[in-house]
Structures are given as C-alpha cells and as structure tokens.
C-alpha cells in the first residue's frame, strides 16, 4: 500500500500538524518508504494468532477509589502558555 498527496494532507490534519504544500511530496516519499518497509509483514501467517495486548500476563492492580490529591489548580496551570484565574485559555471556540 502507498499514500498519495491527498492522503498525506488528510493524515496531517488528523494528526493536527500543519503541512505546507511544498512539504507534501517529501513527506509522501518518507511515509511510502516506511510503508514499503513494513509491507513484509503481510507474508507472516497470523491465522488464529491473538494480538499481543499485554506484555506481562498479570491482573491489573486497582487503587482504592479515594481522593488522595487535589486543591493544586495553581500547580496544574503553572506551565500553561496562557491562563486566567487557574483556567487554561484557548482561542474562542463558541460564538
């Protein structure tokens, strides 16, 4: 399988990465090189094989469902590029 220029633009938008028209051919070439490389997986017989979803077979430990942290809004927003009164500020999304 390989990707065309339209697909590259669609993927970039899905990934929320701005890509200029000038960059598309180059990216297309790189992505197709990677897709060509992984193509060899199609020769593996995976009939009846379960996908690996957990590295170590174990029951996930659950923590007690209790409040053990909090009241640190100022710490949470400290690294944000733009805030007001402990809120994250973003460009207007609702008219």
């Amino acid at each position, binding site marked *: 399988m390989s990707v065309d220029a339209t697909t590259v633009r669609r993927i970039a938008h899905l*990934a929320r990465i701005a890509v200029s028209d000038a960059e598309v051919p180059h*990216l297309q070439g790189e*992505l197709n090189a990677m897709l060509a490389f992984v*193509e060899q997986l199609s020769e*593996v017989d995976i009939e009846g094989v*379960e996908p*690996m979803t957990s590295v170590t077979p174990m029951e996930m*430990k659950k923590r007690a469902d209790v409040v053990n942290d909090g009241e640190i809004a100022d710490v949470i927003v400290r690294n944000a590029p733009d805030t007001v009164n402990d809120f994250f500020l973003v*460009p207007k999304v609702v008219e």
Partner: protein
Amino acid sequence: MTDLTSLTIAEAREGLASKSFTARELTDAHLAAIEAARVLNAYVLETPDRAREMAMAADVKIARGDGGPLAGIPLGIKDLFATRDIRTTACSKILGNFIPPYESTVTSQLWRDGAVLLGKLNNDEFAMGSSNETSCFGPVTNPWRREGSNTTLVPGGSSGGSASAVAALLCMGATATDTGGSIRQPAAFTATVGIKPTYGRCSRWGIVAFASSLDQAGPIARTTRDAAILMRSMAGHDPKDTTSVDIAVPDYEAAIGKSVKSMKIGIPREYRLDGMPAEIEKLWSEGAQWLKAAGAELVEVSLPHTKYALPAYYIVAPAEASSNLARYDGVRYGLRDPGKNIIEMYENTRADGFGDEVRRRVLIGTYVLSAGYYDAYYLRAQKVRTLIKKDFEDCFAKGVNAILTPATPSAAFGIGEKGGADPVEMYLNDIFTVTVNMAGLPGIAVPAGKDTQGLPLGLQLIGRPFDEETLFSLGEVIEQAAGRFTAPKWW
C-alpha cells in the same frame, strides 16, 4: 589522589565510606569535568547548585552512618525523566521550558538512596532516534573516535547523552530509557554497560511517554557491577504505573561474580545476517567462547520471526507515539503558536514544535490507526508481536537461560552519515535490540571488543522475564574476559 571521576560507583562507595574523600569533593570533580567537556553536548542542563546541595546533604548522612546505597554518587539524568522544579524537555521544542511540579518515580528512588543530580542529559527528541541527532539541542558527540581520525561520531541513541557522559567520565552513571534499543545501542557505541530491564520492572511514571507498551527505564554505567547497583535503586513496584510489577527487587549486585556453570546459552541462527561485518561475527563467537570457558553450555537456537520484529515495531511504536503525543496541544504546557482558531493553533503549534523524525512517526502512527487501516497494520503487527514473544518462550522452555547476540550491526558512525535519504537506514541500527522490546524481555549490552578502527563493539544478552540477575552474572563474565575500555581524552 587519583582522579575522582575515573572511579567506578563501587569504588567511590568505598572511598566515601572510608572517608578518603567527601561527596562534595566527588561532585565538584564531576562538575569541573562537565564544564570542560561542553563540546560533547552531553548535558542539556547543568544543575551545579542542586548537585552541591545534595552532595553536602549526603556527606551529613554518611557521617551519621545512614547514607543509603547511593549516598553521594553523582548521576546524570536523561531529559526524558521529569525532575521536580528542574526543566524537563524530552529534548523537544514543543515542551519548551516545561518545569515539572513532580518527580519521576525512578529518579525519586535514586534521590531516596542518596544519589546526587548533576544535570539533565541530551537524547533524541522524545527518544525517537538511534544517533542522538534528532534532539532540539543538537547532536551529542561520542568521546570515541576512529584511530588517527578527527571525525565526529554519534554516541548512538536515543540515550546518547547518557552514554556519552558515562563514557567521558562526566557522571558515574546515568538513567536512560529503551523503547527499541535506546539503552543498549548507545552503550555498545561507547563501551559502557546498559541494561533494559523486563517490561514492568521499573515504573514508567513521570517519564515522558513514547510507546507505552515498549518503554522501559534502565541504567547506563561503566561496569556491570555499577549497572547492578543502579538497577536495584531504580526498580520496584509503583502503584502509579499499572504495568509495573509487584514482585520483590533482588540484590542485583549479589549476582556479580556468581558462577554461570552449566547455564544454557542460546545462539540464535537468525541473528547471523547476510553481509554482517566479519569483526561483529568474530566478536560474537569470542563472546560465546568466553561464556563456554566459564562453564556455560552453548546451544544453537531458532527465533524464526526475528526479521519481522523491526517492521512490526515501526507500526506499533509510531501508533502508540501518535496517541501519546496528542497531549502536546499548546494548551496545558509547552509551546503555543497562534492560529485563527483553535484547530489552527493546534496545527501550527505541533508543526513548529515537533522535529522531522517525530512528525514522521506521528504521521505514520496516525495513518496505521486511521479508519480502514487498523486491521491491516496495527492489528497485524500486534499478532506478529505475539509470534515474536512465542519464539523466545519456546526457546526458554527448552531450558535456555539466556541468549547471546551482537548488540549492534556496526560500530558508531559519523554525524550526518545515516538516514538522510531513507529513514529506514537509521532504523536498521536496532535490528538486534528491538526484538527484546517487542517481547518485553530484559537485555543487557556489555563492551566486548573493538573494531579494526579502534571503536568499541558490544554484545547483548537476552534473559528470561524478570531474570536480570542471570544477565548481570553473564555480563560480568564477558567484562572480565574482554576487559574495560576507556576513550582517550581529546576534549
């Protein structure tokens, strides 16, 4: 007094206990070495004030007799580990001036045991790379050079800063992380010892995530014993990482010098690649003979799905990365580039903040997870991963204790030499290491010799799940036989 920076951790521990020198003196010696070696670009942030403070605190504790296993030992920390109140960037522009209000579990355990923070070490951006050339702080220089040459070589990656700093005596040991070979490949390129423990051995909490089902933290050090000392402090169960395993952490150092007699060592025939350099081949059989001489039994084994590990990795790792890196949105931390609306703000921020390699992997990961392609790529790769893991399980079920392989297909290469035209060329560096991540197993790289140009080469040992001790015992045998290698100082 010998230069304090050339001591091993084990030697420094003794010197501190016998009051031959203080932790402050040990730290000062390293701070001076770091300052004199800035040309290597191993550190992206030096923290001398914090280091002296921690060293003096260690001296007080040592005097009181409650120093802890790493009291006064100066370490470098890969910039992927969150360090409280100290800038942590994963060497990406998109994290900008991120100052974590928390400490990673692994580093907090090192400080609990008395270690001293010298600074943050360079790495490939988000740990994506095999040469440390993708860092937003620029490449790291390997202290090793080809004999009679001034060519600047890469230290490997992604933990290139860690490997370079340990090899150049700029810290006694370093933390590192390994998703496809990022501890073992740079260790092999710099004649240092690096171990990627079993998945789940070290907590991933507070480590900038790349591919969560593959990422593991581990140490890089100058000897197998030092790596074992660091491992004991770094490992252990953490309720904040649900994949961290709740089993006791052994005294890894006790495995050093333990007999390897009658251990079964597998030599996998699929690792004998076409066109493999003769010196790698020679090193591999030499290593096997050393283990045999120590009483181990060599057996040829087969890992039939080996060749599919790297392509499967380049689906699984970018897929997980594309998901993990979705958090860099210009809202909660790091860089923000303005846009006409919020979508444009996201797109501009991420275009500006991610480097080429990271962008490439996020895009490929997004593609293989996108509607209509998930089964063909991601699901298939996860099934292949099951087969890769089963290869190892079958091998261990036949009584094999560990598997011996080369660590890398070549010695260190020059900056700008690889991957320029085709990204896959760079990826092939991890051909011997990536299987281990795919199967979640422990793997150690130990220096074993030099190539014809005088550059270090390493061997890899792959162990059973949670049997890092056997790797330390076998690694020590190789170290004793091969000797230790120190880069001649030119900087």
